[in-house]
């Protein structure tokens, strides 16, 4: 063992200080350039837009105030609006539920083919993974816009868009869960002469099922939100109703729809965390 001599210790000390200085210099440059870019952006926006940024910022709360005052003016007549938009809410939630279900089964199949510990053929794994990458890489709204153009305005394009994206996302997550399982049970099943499907059913599924359910519930939450947003591009459901109400500046309708959406999302959120905790609780 050699101890660091006094002179080399000083050398290291000097190096540390010099590095700290350089880093501070770069940080300042970085911050300055960000500030510059923001100022430039505001400036460009000022030139292009009708109003200026400084005058516009005071009007940010005008529309929300309109919505609330409209709702109050409506009085008791506001509550029937909730009932009026309830069917559109149902179709949005339905779309999300069905798309999540289809996505789940698609993802289970794809994830089995994308897991290194289940498939020995590297070509199949790479092929499946690239397909999952492609399915995942397009946001739902892009797939939906494209399909709406091809299939016409209905709820189906949104369903396909969400299902496709869900297969991509869940497939990737599922295959990661599968690759992390304990290999012992699979080895045990191999040693007693079981076939590949039998190994999947008894060795893999019991281990991964709680994780699968947990991820799927999380995805369901996200999909309800997505299917609302897809209404904006014409996929029907409550999203489309919201878009129309906003366009016509019907503040009472907008507020009713927003209450419905918020309540639904809260309910689904609570439900999914309940199910997830129940399933995870089983593991202990």
């Amino acid at each position: 063992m050699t101890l660091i001599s006094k002179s080399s210790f000083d050398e290291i000390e000097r190096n540390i200080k010099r590095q700290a200085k350089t880093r501070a210099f770069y940080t300042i440059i970085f911050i300055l350039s960000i500030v510059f870019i923001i100022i430039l952006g505001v400036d460009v926006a000022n030139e292009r837009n009708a109003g200026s940024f400084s005058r516009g910022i005071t009007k940010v709360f005008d529309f929300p105030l309109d919505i609330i005052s409209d709702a109050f003016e409506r009085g008791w007549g506001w509550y029937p609006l909730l009932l009026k938009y309830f069917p559109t809410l149902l179709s949005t939630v339905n779309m999300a539920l069905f798309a999540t279900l289809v996505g789940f089964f698609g993802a289970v199949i794809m994830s089995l083919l994308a897991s290194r510990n289940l498939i020995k053929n590297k070509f199949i794994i790479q092929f499946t993974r690239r397909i999952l990458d492609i399915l995942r890489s397009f946001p739902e709204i892009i797939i939906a816009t494209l399909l709406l153009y091809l299939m016409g305005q209905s709820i189906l394009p949104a369903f396909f868009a969400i299902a496709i994206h869900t297969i991509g996302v869940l497939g990737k997550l599922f295959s990661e869960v599968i690759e992390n399982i304990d290999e012992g049970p699979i080895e045990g099943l191999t040693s007693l002469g079981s076939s590949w499907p039998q190994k999947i059913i008894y060795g893999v599924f019991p281990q991964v099922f709680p994780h699968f359910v947990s991820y799927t519930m999380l995805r369901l939450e996200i999909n309800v939100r997505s299917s609302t947003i897809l209404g904006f591009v014409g996929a029907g459901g409550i999203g489309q109703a919201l878009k129309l109400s906003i366009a016509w500046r019907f503040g009472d309708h907008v507020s009713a729809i927003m209450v419905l959406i918020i309540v639904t999302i809260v309910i689904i959120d609570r439900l999914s965390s309940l199910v997830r905790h129940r399933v995870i609780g089983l593991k202990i």
Partner: protein
Amino acid sequence: MLEIVNLTKNFGSLIAVSEANFSITKPQMIGIIGRSGAGKSSLLRMINRLLDATSGEIIHSGINIRNLKGKGKRKWQKECAMIFQQFNLVPRLNVLTNVLLGGLNQQPLIRSLLSIFTQEERNKALKILDRFGIVETALQRAETLSGGQQQRVAICRALMQSPKMILADEPIASLDPLNAKLVMEALRNIHTQEKITVVCNLHTLDTAKKYCDRIIGMKAGKIVFDDAPLKLTQSKTKHIYGADEDDDFNSSVTSTSLG
């Protein structure tokens, strides 16, 4: 019955098992001893076909096991049951189902995919569990059992396969002395009752001497001893374990006996 001829396994440049030769002509209880990394585990895994041999032959009743594929290979695996150090049960399934899994190979695929087991199969599994004194745990999850109980469940699963031979890879290495004794007695009991060959990897000498009719000693992938336990002298033991001649080597150091 079973003949191993020049069986070799390489992992890259590492030679795990080097030209192993031995044959089993009548049902025996065989203990394989040796240091960690001597190739005991690889040898057993090659016999079960969990691991593919690099060269050599495994011949059972005139069939070369090494050439079996697909269905034939799975049929052989069913006949030569395997027991593991870490039990390799499915932790989230109950004990009864874990034992029933031993019969997967004889089941039609559709039935096993739907998890349908016949009354007959269930009765057989319960009888086996009863024989090893763990029938009352039948509906518990395997993961809630103690190590010793789990290993006995694994033995039950092996018996459910109606095997012609049982290979046990360090069956007692992760168990306490009392459970180790129970498990070894269970294996001995299977050998005497079912009259089938049981091959055990052990790293405790006294266990091997106590329970086995024949001991195979391995050192650095080679079989260096193959005879009755009584022939295993102090100097031969030292050779197998690679202890220096002047080291005082005492088998009771690794002893698991209670008395």
